[in-house]
């Protein structure tokens, strides 16, 4: 479980980094639509991390009872 979550963190992080530090000038191409993609992915990543943390906290509570 823990490993899977780590992989998930990593995956989202690399996606965001790739969106932010392009090799060419991808962020300025296509009418800067990639900026929107990066913003939306950041929000999605934030929401998902929140859910993952909530899930782990509840799992911990379930184990302690």
């Amino acid at each position: 479980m823990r490993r899977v979550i780590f992989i998930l963190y990593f995956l989202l992080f690399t996606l965001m980094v790739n969106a932010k530090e392009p090799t060419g000038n991808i962020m300025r191409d296509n009418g800067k639509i990639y900026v929107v993609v990066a913003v939306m992915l950041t929000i999605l990543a934030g929401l998902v991390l929140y859910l993952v943390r909530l899930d782990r906290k509840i799992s911990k509570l379930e184990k302690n009872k």
Partner: protein
Amino acid sequence: MTATIFFMHRSWWKILGVLLLVYTFVMGLLIEVPQNVQLEETIRNLFFHVCMWFGMMILFTVSVIRAILYLSTGNPVHDIASRQYAGVGILFGLLGYATGAIWMSYTWADPNKPIYESFASLAREPKLIGAAIALLVYAAYLVLRDSINDMDKKARISAVYNIFAFAMLFPSIWIIPRLLDSLHPGGSEGNPALNFRDASPNMRMVFYPAIAGWTLIGIWIATLKIRLKILHEQKLSQ
């Protein structure tokens, strides 16, 4: 029963949901979309706005199934699940409504007039009224539940009401809006998102994964709330 409890703790479907959403967000903005004079790039809202309604419908369906299971087995876990799925369904419905309001402001409203001046004509859209009725019927479900103190009575009455609310979805969002003229797609010709003539193959490649991704996230939130509620109930009964 143990099967659903087991399912709530698995992580593969949560990861699948997140990956589908990442795919939706990236591809949804980057794929080629058909050019439409009125919609232009806003056609991409199909992957977000429309998926909210699909997710809502699936969550309400799960909710009514759990309500029926509660009535047939009397297991309080089904009651908790039914309530939480309905709650997340309402959340999705409200998000669908809010995103629809934004979308319509830039596609249906007369561009030569301020948006609020078009409001009188937009507010009579049968699809909007129908969706508002459906959401209010479900809002009444929450009010009804909280107004009954006796636990068994609360669970039983709200399960029966849940079936009624689900039945009300059909006339209010599926039937009546299709009989009346509307600017909203999906009149007498059927659902435009599922109609093979209207959605391009390109868009369907993103649309179906998007529905699955959003629905899985909705189910994830609902299961978290169910687990929390079960813990809460166990604490109370100790």
